[in-house]
């Protein structure tokens, strides 16, 4: 519904800007594009987890002269994919550190000629001892990275943790694990690269961050800024899986294109995409909490270790978010949080919706239920007694300055879920049935935008351009991949200028055309970039006013006329807006203390599950998702984000398991990596609250990642409620439920 404070467009479900093309099949994704003389590329990858390359032989049966072959020696610039540390090679040179690591690149005019050629490259390795788990990496018997396999560590200290144990009525300990998860966008990774000796390299691709690719290509190819051009094509899902990975596939296509002198397309098939690209970081969290007899947290120690895979890539940032979210939406008067990301010989783990928060929040939300049981109060009550309130400080000592009432959010969620009545009913019915039912709660928060000084460092720039026909065009590097970037940013510009939504278009993200508005990550787009869009739009209007063509108060028609006139006289014109750090945001990067995020979104989710003890399968029968997200910019899109995020969260909890064999994903097909179908998901009921946000466009906070945080703990809490056995690991497959039920039964037998 539109219409707050005279707003007509913000808060309305305006149609998706690129929607018509999508429903008619006209939208062009990277594999739909073809250029003259284009070659197809493929990657020869390591079959071992760690070792030296002794020999490469190009086997018989292939007309090798027909292929373009690229190795590390062909890299004109630096052999790394520029990101945080520059430790990840573009192509392995002498040694490999994970299965599927790229060694050679091949290109050929016939797409079908590649698989057999890749198979015919014979590589002799001398294997080295490899490390596959967090425990192995920590033990340090084999050092595979740096001095001690540790990519990064953080420490948060608040208050005086060491003093709380003596006065604690209860000390509750727990250990919680989350597994890897594959983003499984339905469109696999793909790029096309073309090189021109004068203009440089041009990349088209399915990607989230054109400027990340731009930066990486400069270093790899030794080209200046204006000789690298990156264009985002319609992207069929990303979820973080196309945040940093595309720099790698783009690098590969670019190298082939440069050597071949022809455009090169690389599109991964599903098996390659699943096995070789990034996944969610597996994690292990340990909690030790001092609790008073009335269930209040006195203090605690939290330790998180994440598996980063073979190279640093984004692990420091994922770990950072996990660290800051480790305490959940609760007040900790004293806490020590120690976290680290360690190396293993697996393909590097990377960004996936939630980005460290789902792992940390799974642990604390499971732990809160354990605390509840220990103290003897309900899961709802333990949370009520510990929720953060306005005026409280978080574990990083950030003061909560908004009137968030989590207890009320919880009450609303419980009521919508019919929690109390169902708990009573299930307690009775479970006695008589092999199908046990249970209810579970998860309460959580999600910081929007980059951490601390991150947004200042990004220094985002946004443009709004006046068009010849009187309308305006938004210029951002923020990408659309289903979440609604195009639509919401156009809504913002339209609202800011009093124009109809139809008068606003948005440019295809092309680094030659749009400024760098930062990466499309961290749930920052509506909030941070949107605010800049509003500013730039206002700036455009001011240009017209200063030119004497428009008054401050004007109609849409007047604006259009003024714009047309200005373009006719001066040509297309634009206004830029630069990010300005808000006042009073202070963050200490060393002590990890202060305003970690400009704002948080808040949520309470409730899951109803059935565990069928005939098959040990758990299914979610009903799901209630209540969240406070600042402002609902577009109701259909906002609801869509929550529905999709909850579905992925249900997958994370119950279905999606990566089967690792010596560092390689063995179940790299859709048949064996199980994501929920329409037949597996319940009705998901979505409700919003809006507190506004002075740091976000029209009061928006972040929404994209929030729904990923709640489902797994809510579901596992519900499963424990149903069968009375604690589970501390996701994913929970029927085999895991069975093993635990068996174990409990054998313990009971012994007693």
């Amino acid at each position, binding site marked *: 519904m539109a219409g707050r404070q005279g707003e007509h467009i913000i808060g309305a479900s305006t149609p*998706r800007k690129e929607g018509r093309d999508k429903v008619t099949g006209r939208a062009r994704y990277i594999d739909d594009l073809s250029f003259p003389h284009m070659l197809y590329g493929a990657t020869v990858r390591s079959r071992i987890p760690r070792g030296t390359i002794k020999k490469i032989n190009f086997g018989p049966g292939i007309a090798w002269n027909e292929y373009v072959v690229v190795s590390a020696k062909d890299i004109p610039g630096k052999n790394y994919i520029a990101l945080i540390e520059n430790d990840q090679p573009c192509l392995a040179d002498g040694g490999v550190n994970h299965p599927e690591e790229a060694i050679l690149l091949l290109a050929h005019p016939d797409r079908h000629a590649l698989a057999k050629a890749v198979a015919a490259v014979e590589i002799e390795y001398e294997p080295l001892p490899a490390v596959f788990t967090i425990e192995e990496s920590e033990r340090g018997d084999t050092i595979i990275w740096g001095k001690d396999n540790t990519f990064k560590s953080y420490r948060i200290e608040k208050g005086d943790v060491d003093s709380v144990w003596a006065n604690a009525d209860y000390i509750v300990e727990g250990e919680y694990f989350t597994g890897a998860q594959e983003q499984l966008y*339905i469109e696999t990774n793909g790029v096309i690269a073309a090189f021109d000796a004068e203009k440089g390299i041009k990349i088209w691709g399915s990607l989230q961050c054109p400027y990340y690719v731009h930066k990486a290509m400069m270093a790899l190819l030794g080209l200046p800024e204006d000789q690298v051009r990156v264009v985002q094509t319609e992207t069929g*899902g990303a979820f973080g899986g196309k945040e940093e990975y595309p720099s790698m596939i783009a690098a590969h296509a670019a190298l082939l294109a440069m050597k071949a002198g022809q455009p090169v397309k690389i599109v991964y098939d*599903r098996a390659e995409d699943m096995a070789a690209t990034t996944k969610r970081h597996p994690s292990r969290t340990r909690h030790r909490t001092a609790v008073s007899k009335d269930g209040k947290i006195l203090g605690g120690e939290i330790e998180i270790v994440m598996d980063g895979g073979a190279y640093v890539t984004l692990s420091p940032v994922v770990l950072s978010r996990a660290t800051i979210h480790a305490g959940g939406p609760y007040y900790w008067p004293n806490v020590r949080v120690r976290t680290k990301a360690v190396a293993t010989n697996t393909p590097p783990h990377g960004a996936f919706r939630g980005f460290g928060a789902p792992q940390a929040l799974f642990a604390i939300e499971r732990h809160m239920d354990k605390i509840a049981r220990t103290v003897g109060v309900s899961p709802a009550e333990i949370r009520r007694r510990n929720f953060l309130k306005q005026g409280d400080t978080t574990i990083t000592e950030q003061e909560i300055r908004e009137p968030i009432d989590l207890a009320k959010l919880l009450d609303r969620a419980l009521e919508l879920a019919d929690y109390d009545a169902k708990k009573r009913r299930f307690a009775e019915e479970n006695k008589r049935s092999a199908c046990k039912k249970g209810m579970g709660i998860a309460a959580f928060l999600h910081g929007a935008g980059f951490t601390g000084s991150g947004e200042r460092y990004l220094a985002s720039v946004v443009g709004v351009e006046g068009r010849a026909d009187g309308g305006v065009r938004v210029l951002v590097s923020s990408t659309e991949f289903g979440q609604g970037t195009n639509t919401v940013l156009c809504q913002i510009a339209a609202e800011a200028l009093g124009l109809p939504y139809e008068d606003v278009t948005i440019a295809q993200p092309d680094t030659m055309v749009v400024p760098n508005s930062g990466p499309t990550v961290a749930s920052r787009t509506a909030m941070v970039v949107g605010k800049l869009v509003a500013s730039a739009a206002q700036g455009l209007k001011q240009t017209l006013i200063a030119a004497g063509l428009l008054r401050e108060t004007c109609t849409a028609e007047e604006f259009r006329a003024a714009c047309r006139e200005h373009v006719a006289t001066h040509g297309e014109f634009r206004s830029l807006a630069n990010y300005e750090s808000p006042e009073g945001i202070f963050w200490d990067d060393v002590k990890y203390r202060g305003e970690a995020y400009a704002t948080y979104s808040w949520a309470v989710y409730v899951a109803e599950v059935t565990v069928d003890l005939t098959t040990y399968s758990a299914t979610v029968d009903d799901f209630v998702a209540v969240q406070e997200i600042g402002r609902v910019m577009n109701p259909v899109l906002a609801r869509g984000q929550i529905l999709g995020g909850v579905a992925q969260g249900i997958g994370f909890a119950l279905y999606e398991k990566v089967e690792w064999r010596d560092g390689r994903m063995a179940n790299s097909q859709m048949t064996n990596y199980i994501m929920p179908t329409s037949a597996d998901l319940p009705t998901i009921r979505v409700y919003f609250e809006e507190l506004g946000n002075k740091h976000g466009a029209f009061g928006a906070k972040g929404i994209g990642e929030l729904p990923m945080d709640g489902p797994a703990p809510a579901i596992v809490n519900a499963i424990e409620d149903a069968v009375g056995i604690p589970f501390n690991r996701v994913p929970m497959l029927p085999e895991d439920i069975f093993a635990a039920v068996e174990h409990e039964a054998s313990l009971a037998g012994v007693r």
Partner: protein
Amino acid sequence: MKKAAAKREISFTVNGEPRTVRAYPMERLLDVLRQELGLTGTKEGCGEGECGACSVLMDGMLVDSCLVPVAQAQGAKVVTIEGVSRDARCRALQESFLECGGAQCGICTPGMILAAAHLLQKRPKPTTEEIREGLSGNLCRCTGYMQIFEAVAEAARRAAVR
């Protein structure tokens, strides 16, 4: 009976028009549609018949075109998203997808619309369960399916009202 490893001419109807392609018989129908015929609306999501992004109608039946050797399409009537977009009933489905948020990233959408069109043809007034089952071979990673079901139900409702 032909049995050669060479390309052969295969004729079939695509979106109402007779077409003839020269292709290897084991080329996937999906690739022939996309490459030879330039109909890129049909997508590849998995290549193993799991995701349904490649769904087309072949002689009125929903099939995964990644699993059909083009030689088996000889003489068949094939309809893709480009063709189905010309049908008024399907346009109604596309409108309701737009209104209800049935498409987010859009990559599953062509296959989803084909599957929904196929369902509505057999069951003009489907129950939620029937919609769920009819679309169970089409995977969507973005929407959690609900707004897709709502779009299909809405299209069915509107068709009934007319």
